[in-house]
């Protein structure tokens, strides 16, 4: 937010970089074609001059021009590549971070449905094609346009209008052919590629279970089917592309012949004929690139569309039940929550208030609706209250939170960037995690796989505590812990002076029964015994 100006400046810089690159590309190719035409003309002119007895042919000036063109071509090519790639890479990086920001900003319920494998493909491959379109599509189109105009003008100036018109017409026809060709084939290929990547991301994790079931072959067969499909889609797309290349190539050859033939009629001498032929050759060779450019454009458009639309929608977008809640200096409260009726319990309307720094314990049997209530409360409080004094209003700890690949320290610092390793070690000790040898430098493995369930639970909790929220909501904080550690963890939660804690438990343990700071909200019974 503070850098709202910064992206503008950056995008303007990126745009000027891209423009510079395009200009350099045009200069480089113009000199390249100029070099070709001029040196052909030069040699022919020498021959013409050598054949005639008296000639006033000056050798010096054209050879100087040839040298100049050669220099411009070499320097232009080098700097064009450098600048265009820098601009394109910058675009790729921007596309990547935009995708992340967009995924982060999507509606909560929706993002559950975003598939990580799918997003991985978008982030890597699609961002790449969208950014590289500058080099593969924009640059060739711009260069071809400039060359066609420049070449036609040069031909017209040196001979007549007719060959110039033929040349321009040929380039336009090639552009039309290239433009009409790219179709659904390339997009089908990208979709199969995405499917393969998504499948692999899942299958590699699923292998252990599947292999034990004897379903490893099936799992491999699924992947094989997907890459076979990719291979076939690629074959179709390639065949199409090469057909376009062939057609544009043949059109180019025909145009070249026609231009030379018409040029031969109007050309004053052999040198001009060679000049016209080579000039149009340069233009048409460049125009042959249009087939690939159109293909890259189609790819980039599809990639761009995928980058800017949201992921597949979840089929089970759980609707959060209605609840009214408030948060003040004195604490929090909620009301009008409709607890649905169940077999052993009639439905009723719930409400409670919790003073600041105290704890609300929601208890109930399996499926009594504890987790739903906690989720509803969390999302409602989040909407009701903004964070104050640099502290977030609510932090909720879920049973299936996520640990990021890296060290425990790096995970902790996601919550509070200012913590150093020693402070994190202290907190680990507080949660009795150091007993099992965990330190801030411990690596957690992909998705936290190196840690046990009970350890994970405490790490999630500790990380959330580091946020120092006004309200902390924890679903079943003691799962996977032995009684002693569970008591210890509950002790930490009851002793948070300025954080209001809401937890769900199966039963209120003895250690909390005596505490004066604890309000109970059982969901199993008819009466509301919030004391």
């Amino acid at each position: 937010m503070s850098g709202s100006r910064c992206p503008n400046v950056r995008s303007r810089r990126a745009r000027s970089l891209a423009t510079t690159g395009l200009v350099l590309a045009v200069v480089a190719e113009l000199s390249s074609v100029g070099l070709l035409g001029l040196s052909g003309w030069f040699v022919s002119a020498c021959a013409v001059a050598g054949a005639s007895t008296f000639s006033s042919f000056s050798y010096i000036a054209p050879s100087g021009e040839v040298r100049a063109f050669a220099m411009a071509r070499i320097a232009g090519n080098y700097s064009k590549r450098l600048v265009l790639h820098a601009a394109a890479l910058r675009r790729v990086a921007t596309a990547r971070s935009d995708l992340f920001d967009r995924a982060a900003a999507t509606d909560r319920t929706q993002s559950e449905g975003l598939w990580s494998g799918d997003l991985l493909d978008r982030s890597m491959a699609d961002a790449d094609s969208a950014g590289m379109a500058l080099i593969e599509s924009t640059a060739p189109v711009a260069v071809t346009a400039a060359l066609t105009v420049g070449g036609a003008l040069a031909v017209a100036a040196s001979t007549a209008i007719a060959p110039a018109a033929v040349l321009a017409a040929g380039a336009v026809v090639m552009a039309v052919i290239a433009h009409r060709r790219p179709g659904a084939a390339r997009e089908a290929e990208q979709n199969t590629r995405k499917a393969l990547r998504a499948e692999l991301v899942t299958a590699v994790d699923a292998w252990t279970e599947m292999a034990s079931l004897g379903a490893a072959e099936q799992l491999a067969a699924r992947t094989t089917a997907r890459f076979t499909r990719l291979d076939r889609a690629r074959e179709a797309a390639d065949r199409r592309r090469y057909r376009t290349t062939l057609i544009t190539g043949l059109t180019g050859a025909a145009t070249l012949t026609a231009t030379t033939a018409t040029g031969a009629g109007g050309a004053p001498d052999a040198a001009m004929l060679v000049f016209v032929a080579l000039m149009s050759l340069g233009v048409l060779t460049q125009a042959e690139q249009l087939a690939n450019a159109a293909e890259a454009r189609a790819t980039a458009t599809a990639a761009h569309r995928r980058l800017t639309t949201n992921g597949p929608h979840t089929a089970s977008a759980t609707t959060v039940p209605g609840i009214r809640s408030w948060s003040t200096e004195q604490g929090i409260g909620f009301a009008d929550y409709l607890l649905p009726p169940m077999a052993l319990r009639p439905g009723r309307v719930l409400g409670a208030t919790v003073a600041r720094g105290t704890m609300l314990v929601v208890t109930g049997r399996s499926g009594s609706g504890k987790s739903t209530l906690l989720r509803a409360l969390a999302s409602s409080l989040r909407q009701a209250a903004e964070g104050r004094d640099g502290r977030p209003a609510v932090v909720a700890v879920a049973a299936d939170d996520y640990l990021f690949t890296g060290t425990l320290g790096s995970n902790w610092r996601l919550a509070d960037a200012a913590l150093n390793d020693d402070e994190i070690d202290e907190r680990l000790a507080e949660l009795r995690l150091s007993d099992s040898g965990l330190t801030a430098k411990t690596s957690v493995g992909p998705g936290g796989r190196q840690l046990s369930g009970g350890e994970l639970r405490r790490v999630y909790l500790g990380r959330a505590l580091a946020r120092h929220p006004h309200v902390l909501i924890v679903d079943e904080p003691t799962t996977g812990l032995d009684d002693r550690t569970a008591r210890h963890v509950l002790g930490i939660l009851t002793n948070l002076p300025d954080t209001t804690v809401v937890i769900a438990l199966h039963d209120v343990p003895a250690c909390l029964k005596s505490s004066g700071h604890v309000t109970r909200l059982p969901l199993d019974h008819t009466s509301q015994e919030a004391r």
Partner: protein
Amino acid sequence: MTTHETDETSGPGAVGERPDHDAWLTACAAPGRHWFGLSGTLRTLETLFTITRWGALAWTAQGALDRATAHETWGLAAFAVTSASAVGAGWAAGTLAERGGRAVSTGLRRQLTGALLPTAGRITEAGPAEAAWAVVDLADDVADFHAQVAPLRRSAPLSMLAVLAVTAAVHWPAAIVLVLTTALLPLNMRLAGLFAQHGADRQLAATRHLNAVVLDSFRGMRTLRELGAVGRRGRTLTTAAERLNKATTSVLRRAFLSGMIMDVVITFSIAVNATYIGLSLLNYVHVPHAPRLTLFTGLLVLLVCPMYFAPMRARASAFHQRERALNAAGTIRDIVEDTPAAVARAARPQPTEAVGVSLTQVRFRYGGADHDTIHADADFAPGTWTAITGASGSGKSTLLSLIAGLRLPSAGAVRWQTSLVRLAPTLGGCAWVGQQTVLLDATVRDNIRLGRPDATEQQIRKAVDAAGLNAVIGRLPEGLNTRLGEGGWGVSTGEARRIAIARAFLRGARLWLLDEPTAHLDADSEREVIEALRRVTDGCTVIVATHSFTLAAAADLVLAIDGGLLHDAGLVNAR
């Protein structure tokens, strides 16, 4: 380059690892070699057509100079025909190379799939992001390299020879200039090769890192939001992306620089020839014994000159692709190497009888580690529940995977035994429920019957019942036909775990290995999962690695792993 081809059996980390990778990279081209050869032949043909085409153009120009209209017309006709032929040959060469490339990438993908999702034990420890990257992107890197370079191997020398021969036939002093410049070029090629070596590995590492960061960020998005760390993680992502950009830019800058140097040399050589031809045509210079230059010969020499250098230029630019492909091949090889050959299905224990397990002096050491992760000697009686406890990372999961046959022990023997037979573990003989249930992108029904595709509706219903999934399936919009997505989308973690239980139950194995089956679950789901496990494992042997006291307390026998050593933690309660 091809001399090492048969050297495939030498171990990794041996002396001269790079040439070894070279050989491996070369061997990757095998599936497409046929196509590459054909493509190379056609490329040579394209060169021949192009030479003829220039000849026709020069002939036309000569005709124009001599005011010989017939020559001019014939020349133009020949020019048109040869142009079309060159385009056609180029098209065919490109198509064939592409086809060869596809054969190469498909071959690599097949190998990778075999290593990542093998039917015997899995060796590789590659994570999901790396696996997807290797299969999708790296396989293409290698294939693209071969598609570009392999045809050149045949066409480059032939094309250069053809151009040189034509030049020499037409005007030998020009050919000498070409030959002299060729002597300069190896220096350049060497430079290009040296340039290319640096940075490519850094680029690879940056790409790998970015892939992992991206996948992690999307998977943990909800947690990031909860922690208010979206911005910080975004910056991590940006940093990783910038690191990749920086590495890529440095690689590209080298490539462009060496390309430019090449360009300078080639341009210089062409300029020398052009100047010589111009001056000879003006009759300013004359090399003794050389044939007299005409417009036809002069122009032809000048036009074919760049063609002489084209293959060299392609080779030089391929150095960078080669480095990229070499790195890609290294990563792929790390995954693929040592994959045990697919085994034919061995006889499985009869599902009617519980299976016991005996571990005799079993040791396991990870590749590259300096100590054993596991040292175990134990017997698990048929029909009992055994809990294995131990600190995190103590090797519980590794031990279970050894028992399941997912990994092979470094020493000692794992045996499954019934009253009749005693055999080595076979994949598919036991049921495994792990701490990370992954549901495939398929319907609930297909997910459940993965281990037994021919299961009847009744059997599926029974499994659903046993796993306590009736209520869950009733809630889904299309019941058993509801599609589930990556990571069990649409069902909770606990429900996904129970789907895995139903899946294992349907399979009918009598040995159950449970790796923290209640991890990541809230207490309610944990109870439901344990109830389901109790129901389905009735009369089976169960070995469970757990931290859960609820689970451990229910076991017949509790073993503990400490410092890699498996020992008895005391009989808890006899059944």
